[in-house]
């Protein structure tokens, strides 16, 4: 027996709340670091999923696992995480999208934000009014996202 067993919980709400909070910090204080690269990369991944509505998470079992006998190690998290959809994150994204970008299409929203995140990660943010306005709006978007997720986390 293992030392402890717990029902698997969906941590995506906490994870994306942390990431959105970190993004807001970096938008306030631009600069280069490895940490921000990872933060922005994971947010870009989230946006890609949002664009294609690809939230279901399938922890693919091995091709022969159907035959696995009792007693052989089973992947610990299969049963409860299979087809997990992170619905809280989806709802929070949709709310932040509508509240901040109104009728902008999902496609355009994701493209705009991904370009900004890439510029921030590489510390190559153009010094023009359009970009500044885009960054300000992105900041509100991530702040809204983190607030929505925090409310659900509480």
């Amino acid at each position, binding site marked *: 027996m293992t030392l402890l067993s717990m029902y698997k919980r969906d941590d995506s709400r906490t994870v994306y709340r942390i990431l959105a909070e970190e993004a807001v910090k970096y938008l306030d204080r631009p600069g280069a670091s490895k940490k921000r690269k990872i933060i922005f990369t994971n947010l870009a991944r989230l946006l890609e999923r949002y664009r294609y509505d690809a939230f279901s998470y399938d922890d693919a079992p091995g*091709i022969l696992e159907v035959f696995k006998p009792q007693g*052989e190690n089973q992947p610990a998290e299969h049963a409860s995480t299979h087809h997990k959809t992170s619905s809280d994150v989806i709802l929070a994204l949709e709310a932040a999208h509508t509240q901040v970008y109104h009728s902008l299409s999902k496609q355009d929203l994701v493209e705009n934000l991904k370009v900004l995140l890439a510029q921030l990660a590489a510390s190559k943010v153009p010094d023009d009014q359009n970009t500044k306005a885009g960054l300000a709006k992105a900041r509100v978007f991530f702040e809204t996202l983190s607030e929505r997720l925090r409310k659900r986390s509480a």
Partner: protein
Amino acid sequence: MNSKEFLLQECENVRATLQDVLRHDYAAGSSQEFYDEFCERLEVLESILEPTDPTDVSTLGTFAKEISLLSTLVHRVERSHAGEFPWPFTEYLQDLAEPLCMENLAQNEGKPIIRVYAEGGLFSYQINLEDDLSVLNIGRRIFTIVFPHTLRHHVLLHAIFGHEIGHAAWTIPQHKSDLKGKVLEPLRAVGPLNSTSQATAWLKDTKAPPPILELRDQYADEYSEITLNQLDSWFQEFMCDLFGLVTFGGSFLAAHQTLLLALDPSGHRWGPYHPPYVCRKAMLWHACKHLGWPNFPSDISDTKLRSDIEAFVTEYCGSPPGPWEDIFTQDQVAQAVDALKDLLTQVGTSCFSMPDESILLPLVRMLREQIPPCGSDLSGSENPANRNVDFRHILFAGWIVADELAGQNNDAGKGGQFLVLNKLCEMGLLQQRAIDRYKAAKEGGTS
């Protein structure tokens, strides 16, 4: 020591373990990338954990999982050192998988790092994909490919990884969207698996084959109903089988049948994630027919080779399926296969095509003479004309000869012969890799 202090200490332990695993020799390629990525993850985790309020139990619980995942990852990679897996095969597998698994992200982050290790019994063929949304801390995704330890040099069986490539592609949002719409949609449109109620009725069909009736009688709880999640998983498995067929070709068919029937000789069992083998085989039969493979032997002029390929086709493409397991029409499968080939071609992953006789015959002859099969010119010429050979054709040749030997009875023993054949093919892949690199360098490409 409180939770936060313990977790920070565990970060140090993981870092120390990472330094420790560096004592091994690793195959050239992604070790540096792995090391850099791992260190970055650890640094990010520590930097976010440090200022966390020790009473923020939700966040600390998330960090505990993150650190445990890093610990598991470093343990896996410790087992991926040279000698533990057939690295020439793995390099070819990476070439196939990388363009397909490239994420649409800025800079270098979209390219996965692929590591391989051998662990566990026959059931352990798997690819771990880092696809969990609730994971905080991933720069580049690290895919870990797992071989059964005892089969680590059985490259002919590793063609089964064509199936796992499908699972990897499914984790890329754009591919997932395309696969759902273009590959799965035709398969799901009609037939007994069109809905959970129809699927359940199909399983309970009184005309189902006797093994199905037996399973239902014996294990009523597990074998009486199909849920929606189960159906979704089954279709993903069907799709991944098509990936295997289209990427690895004949060697996938043979590995698929050999491994799955070895573990479920009746071919009728199913589970929460996997449909019965007989249905998968029926779908593959339609797919082979669509690809024209049953007609391939007629293109071969060498009598012995033609008869060997005919035997291969009969054994692995199979015969028309029975009515219960034949759950897709020819048209459904043809649409799915064509859509999949289009997708693979668009991203730059090459599909399998049957080899010319001029390629296949020398490979088969080399194997019959116990020479590693590859594009080496063995004519004795002063200027040897080595040539490029698709690694999948080497595996295909291996299976043709494996079946030829299986039909013979001699003292060496069939199992032993199969192992020798695998080792020869592994050596062939190694030599072919060298030829490919030499030719690429000579032609001014990267090596």
